[in-house]
């Protein structure tokens, strides 16, 4: 296997499905990612400005009295596990390298700026939709929830809609990669 050849995608998808199934079987809930971001933000705001957090309807809902610290959330630990698992995988495949991956027509600074903007949109959108690609779409589809299918179609539908406008970020001057 060379550096850039990942696992067969169907095999990877099958394994991903088994991990999700195991999660549902053991814990009764699905996987997630964006929830950990939320917990970290809530914990940070609560540490810096507890009065502000208590007054806000968003933070206070996640900080009920007698509640466990938001950093002790299930998803925070799960995402820590993701970091370790991905690191081990990258190590085993010799993919560990500090690098900015970008399209051929974008500068490094531009790429980082757009990545941050994309992250901000994803973070905000996931709050509104109550979950991201993992927590709402993938895990939701596995338990056949309406939210799972609607969120999945909205993410990918909007992606295909906007793809034309963002093509300079990813494609070369010629079509194809």
């Amino acid at each position, binding site marked *: 296997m060379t550096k850039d050849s990942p696992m067969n995608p169907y095999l990877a998808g099958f394994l991903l499905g088994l991990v999700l199934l195991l999660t549902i079987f053991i814990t009764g809930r*699905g996987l997630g990612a964006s929830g950990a971001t939320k917990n970290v933000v809530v914990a940070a705001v609560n540490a810096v400005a507890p009065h502000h957090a208590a007054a*806000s309807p968003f933070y206070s809902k996640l900080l009920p009295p007698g509640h466990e610290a938001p950093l002790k959330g299930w998803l925070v630990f799960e995402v820590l*596990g993701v970091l370790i698992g991905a690191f081990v*995988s990258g190590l085993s495949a010799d993919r560990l390298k500090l690098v900015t991956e970008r399209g051929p027509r974008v500068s490094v600074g531009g790429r980082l700026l757009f990545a941050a903007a994309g992250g901000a949109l*994803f973070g*905000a*959108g996931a709050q509104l939709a109550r979950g991201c690609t993992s927590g709402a779409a993938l895990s939701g589809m596995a338990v056949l929830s309406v939210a799972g299918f609607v969120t999945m179609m909205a993410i990918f539908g*909007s992606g295909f809609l906007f*793809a034309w406008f963002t093509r300079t970020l990813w494609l070369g001057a010629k079509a*194809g990669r």
Partner: protein
Amino acid sequence: MGPFVPDLISDQLNLVVALAIGFLFGYVLEQAGFSSSRRLVGVFYGYDLTVLRVFFTGAVTAAVGVLLLAAGGLLDLTAIFVNPTWLTPAIVGGAIMGLGFLLGGFCPGTSVCAVAIGKVDAMAFVGGSFLGVFGYAELFPRFAAFADSTSLGPAKVTTALGVSQGVFVLLLAGAAVLAFTVGGLVEKKVAPETAPSRHFPVRKHVAAAAVLLAVAAFAAVLPNRNARLIAKVNAPGYVPHHVVKAMTPDELAFRILDRDPHLRVVDLRAETARKARPLPGTIAVPAADVLGKEWRNTFSERMVRKVLVAETEAEARTAAFLLVETGFENVAYLEGGYPEFERTVLSPAAPEGEGRFAPVVERFREQARVGLAERVRLERAAGTAAPKKVKKVQGGC
């Protein structure tokens, strides 16, 4: 029977489980190549459909697996978390995430994987996502009403579309195979030199698709374990494994008043009926849910006789047979259903019995009427008559 949270696995241990599951999740995502933004967005331009393949295969695998586990009686579907739907917010939020995907090149889960192997653009994405959540939280009061609009609760697509879970999952698997086939053709057309699918052995993939569809079809026609049991106990000539005894209204009244420690009265009646005509010292269990996981401990006390009370004797007997069929012992049902109990024990105008014990029975019933009413009054005053709250798994992002 799964899930093991919160009964078998405590909240603390669950965090260790979270770490282990996260490890597997991160490992698989990174192995799939999801730490590369250019590969991820390839799905939107058609030059690399890895995302479509991994994501769709994962969802179908898990959906089929959930169905198989439930059919085998290994997973209690009523106890697992189904993420609730807020329809319009889900669509708008999903659309915002779609734009974020194209600008940023990641989704939250994949960005964490990419950070782990040193992608600087992923670090910018994660930094941005903190700002995004912070901005959302700060501006939240302005659109709180919108965020909570069009709530459908934990709605399921199968209910919304009116199809069975098995049929839906089979259709989903079929849609996946179709999407993979068409997607592969598109990918080879857009990027003939670099498309991952140019290396796929066609025969193996056709075989894998056939296996997937066969398993999904099997899951679709597999009868649900509970449905199978209900059909079995209702079949003519059914003989239960263990003894299922009928209990007369008088014996039930006596043992309730006696506070018999070896008796557990299980009230299967609907909540309205329970409230209007209460029985003291009972546990309320919805009739449709007697095989539910949360009642397991109640029914598995072998030295305690579990007496099922329902509106009709047939209903209580069927529930008793179901319990016996799943291995519980010492189960009984109330003879004649609750109306018979009311007619004989509770009504002052009960018909006179025959024989020399009739006056004794009459006297007992008179005492029972007073005693039971007093017990109901005490329970109401103490607030213990409220039905037990069902423990449910919490989840979601």
